C-alpha cells in the first residue's frame, strides 16, 4: 500500500526532520560511539536522495538483505575507511582479495556491487556517515519499500502483464518494460533488446523483496535516468513482481523469440514491403531506349525464324 512515491515524499520533508535527528544524535555522541557526528555533519538532503537513487535497490538499512547486505550496523562489521574505499571501487577491493569483501561477494551470490556513477571520496564519506546515523535509528527511512506482502493474485499477474506490455500506462509516465525488455510468452516478435531478457529475473534476484526494490528505484545506468523522474508506484511494482514471478514459474523451455527468427522475419517483412511497393508503383517509368532496341531485335529474330 505504501509505495515508493511515499518514501520520496518523506525524503522531501527531511529538512524538517533534521532537528529531530539532532536530538537523536546527542546520545550517540555521549556514549562515544564510533563515527561520531555532530550537528554540522547531519546528512544533507542531497545525500539522502543520492542514497535513495543509487543504493536502495540493493540495500536496506534495517530492512534485511536484498541483493546486497542490510547496512544497519555496517560500521560494526567494517571500519569507516574500508567502507569508503569499498564504495569508491567495489570490484577493485573484491578482486584485491580482501577477505571480508570476498565473503560479501559470496553472500551476494557472486553479484558484484556496481560502482555508482558520479561517486567521489567526499560523497562516499557522506554516504558512510548517513549509513551510520541511520543505523542508530529505531526505524530508518531506508528500511525498504513498504510494498504490501499480501498474496499475489491472478489479477495482479494480469495487471502486471498489461503494464509490461504497455497496454496500461504507468501512473507517472514511465515507459513500458516492453520497449527495452522481453520475457517469454509474449509471442510475436518479443520485446525490446536493449535490456536483458527478464524471463528469469525473478529467480536471478531471488525473490519478491529484491525485485520490488529494484523496480522501486532501478539502479542500472540505463534505467536510472529514465525512471528517476517517473518512478513506479507500489501497486505497479507489486503487479510487475507478480507477473515476473508467474513468468519465471511458467514452464521452462519456452524460450523468448530467437534472434534468428527475429532476423528472418525482418527479411521477410522487407521483402514483402518491397514487393508491395513494386506493385503499387508498377506503372512507374523504367527505361525507354534499351527496351526499344531489345524489342526490335526480338521482333527481327522472331520474323526470321
Amino acid at each position, binding site marked *: 500500500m505504501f509505495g515508493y512515491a511515499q518514501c520520496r515524499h518523506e525524503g522531501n520533508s527531511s529538512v524538517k526532520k533534521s532537528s529531530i535527528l539532532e536530538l537523536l544524535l546527542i546520545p550517540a555522541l555521549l556514549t562515544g560511539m564510533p563515527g561520531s557526528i555532530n550537528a554540522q555533519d547531519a546528512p544533507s538532503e542531497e545525500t539522502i536522495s543520492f542514497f535513495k537513487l543509487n543504493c536502495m535497490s540493493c540495500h536496506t538499512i534495517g530492512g534485511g538483505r536484498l541483493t546486497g547486505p542490510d547496512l544497519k550496523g555496517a560500521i560494526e562489521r567494517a571500519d569507516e575507511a574500508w567502507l569508503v574505499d569499498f564504495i569508491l571501487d567495489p570490484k577493485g577491493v573484491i578482486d584485491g582479495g580482501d577477505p571480508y569483501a570476498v565473503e560479501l561477494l559470496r553472500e551476494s551470490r557472486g553479484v558484484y556491487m556496481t560502482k555508482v556513477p558520479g561517486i567521489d571520496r567526499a560523497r562516499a564519506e557522506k554516504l558512510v556517515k548517513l549509513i551510520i546515523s541511520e543505523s542508530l535509528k529505531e526505524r530508518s527511512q531506508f528500511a525498504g519499500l513498504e510494498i504490501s506482502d499480501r498474496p499475489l493474485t491472478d489479477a495482479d499477474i494480469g495487471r502486471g502483464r498489461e503494464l509490461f506490455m504497455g497496454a496500461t500506462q504507468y501512473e507517472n509516465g514511465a515507459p513500458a518494460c516492453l520497449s527495452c525488455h522481453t520475457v517469454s510468452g509474449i509471442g510475436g516478435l518479443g520485446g525490446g533488446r536493449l535490456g536483458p531478457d527478464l524471463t528469469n529475473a525473478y529467480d536471478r534476484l531471488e525473490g519478491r523483496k529484491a525485485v520490488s526494490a529494484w523496480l522501486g528505484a532501478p539502479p542500472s545506468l540505463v534505467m536510472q535516468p529514465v525512471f528517476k523522474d517517473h518512478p513506479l508506484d507500489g501497486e505497479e511494482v507489486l503487479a510487475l513482481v507478480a507477473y515476473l514471478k508467474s513468468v519465471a514459474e511458467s514452464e521452462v523451455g519456452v524460450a523468448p523469440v530467437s534472434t534468428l527468427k527475429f532476423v528472418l522475419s525482418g527479411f521477410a517483412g522487407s521483402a514483402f514491403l518491397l514487393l508491395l511497393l513494386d506493385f503499387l508503383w508498377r506503372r512507374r*517509368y*523504367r527505361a*525507354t*531506349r534499351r527496351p*526499344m532496341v531489345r524489342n526490335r531485335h526480338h521482333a*527481327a529474330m522472331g520474323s526470321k525464324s
Partner: protein
Amino acid sequence: MVFHLDKCIGCHTCSVACKNVWTDREGTDYMWWNNVETKPGTGFPTKWEDQESYKGGWKTDGEKLELRSTSKKKIIPNIFHNPSQPSLDDYYEPWTYNYDELFNAPEGDDQPVARPISMITGEPMEIEAGPNWDDDLGGSEVYAANDPNLDVLSDEQQQQMKAIERMVMFYLPRICNHCLNPSCVAACPSGAMYKRGEDGIVLINQDRCRAWRSCISACPYKKTYYNWSTGKSEKCILCFPRLEAGEAPACFHSCVGRIRYLGNVLYDADRIKEAALRPDDELVEAQRDTILDPHDPAVIAAAQASGIPDGVIESAQKSPVYRFAKEWKLGLPLHVEYRTFPMLFYVPPLLPVMSISDGDIVRSDVDELFAEVEKARAPIEYLGKLFSAGNVGKVRYALRKQLAVRIWRRHVTVGDVAEEMAKKALAEADCTPEQADEIYRLSALATWDDRFVIPPFQREMAMEMMTDPHEHRASAGFGSREEPRRS
C-alpha cells in the same frame, strides 16, 4: 526565335558551339542544350515526344489546365523519387577516349587503339548510344521506326517513308523553347525556376534549385537537365550574357545555314490561360492570338503604360519572329499540343520532289519541281503532328506559301514561269508579290542585323520594374554566393 528548317543542313555546328561554351563541365557532359535531331527519329533523349512515358507538359479537360507529371495527389507518394524521368541510358553515357594510349603506346605488332572511357565512372565502357545515335536515319529500323509521330500515318505511308529512293528525312534543331506557359516553372517545388520579365528567358536559379528534378519530368521537350556533379538542374539560358552585350546566342551566331532568327514579340499574358484550354487543332491560332501587333498604336500605348521601354517596342516592330510567326504565318510551334506555347517557331521544311527517276531518265521539269505540297516527300500529316498538333491546314498553308514564293522568284530571276501563273500561285497561297519578296529577302539574303534583332537590354531598369532598390538600401551587404555543388 525562328528556325527555318528548309535551310538546316544538319551540321551540328550549333550543338558544338553550345557545348563548348556552356556544357563542357563535369556533370554536364551528357547535356545538349542545343541538339539537332533527324526526323523521323526518336531524338534526344530517346523518344522524348512520348509523353505517355515521360509525362511532360500540360493536359486539360477544357476547363482546367493540369501538369501531366505531377499533382497535389501525386506529390506525396512520389516524394522520394520524381518519376517519369529519362534514365542516363535514355540520354547516353558520356564518354571520352584514352588518347594517351594511342599516342604513347610502345612499339608493337598491333595498331594502338584508344578505348572509350566513361566520363561518369572513368572505366572503359561499351558505347551503346550517343546523342545523335540516329543521325541521318542511322539505325532507322529501330530508331526512326519508333518515332512517336509516325502514329498519324497509314501503314502504306509508313512503308513509303521507309522505301529506298522514297525515304525522307529532315533535321530538327532543338533548344529550350522558352515557353510562354512553361510547365517546368510550374512544376518546380523550390520556386527556383522563373521566366525573366524583360525577355522571357526561362532560367533556373542555381542557389534555390534543390534537385527535385520536377522540371525534368515536366518539360515535354526534355530541355532541362540534371547536373549530377553540382546536384542542380541546368538548361539553355539563351546565352543571356551574350544577349545583354548585344550579341546573338552562340548557337544562333554560329549557324552555318543561317536558319536561326531572334527577336522579341509583345504578347498578352492574360490570354495565355484561355488559349491553353482550347482544343488541339485551335492551339496554333490561339498562340498566335496572344502575340500582339507591335505597330498597333493601342498595343504601343499599352506597352508603354506597362513600363516597356521604347527600345524594346521598336525592336519588337523589327522582329523577324513577329513576321515569320504572326504576319506571314510561316513559323509554327513544335508540338503545341503540350500547351506550353513554345516561343521557338519552325518554318516547316518544304522537301519538294526535286527530280523523278523515270526509267533511265532523271527529269526535273518545272511542273514537277514545284509540285503540289501534297506530293512532297514528307507526308503532310507527319509535319502536322510535329508543328500544328494535327491541324494539317496550318502546315499546308506555310508550305504552299513557301512554294508560291519559290514560283514567284523563279518567275523573277529565271523567267521560265509566266507572271500570270506565278501571281496565281501567290494568290492561292494568300501572299502578295511584295510579301513574297520580303519572305525571300529574310529567308535567303538576311544579314546579321536582319536575323538578330536584339532589344536593348536595360537590366537596371528591368530590375526596378520588379523591385524597388531603395527597399534593400542599407539592408544587404557584400556576401559570397554559394557555389553550386554538392555539400
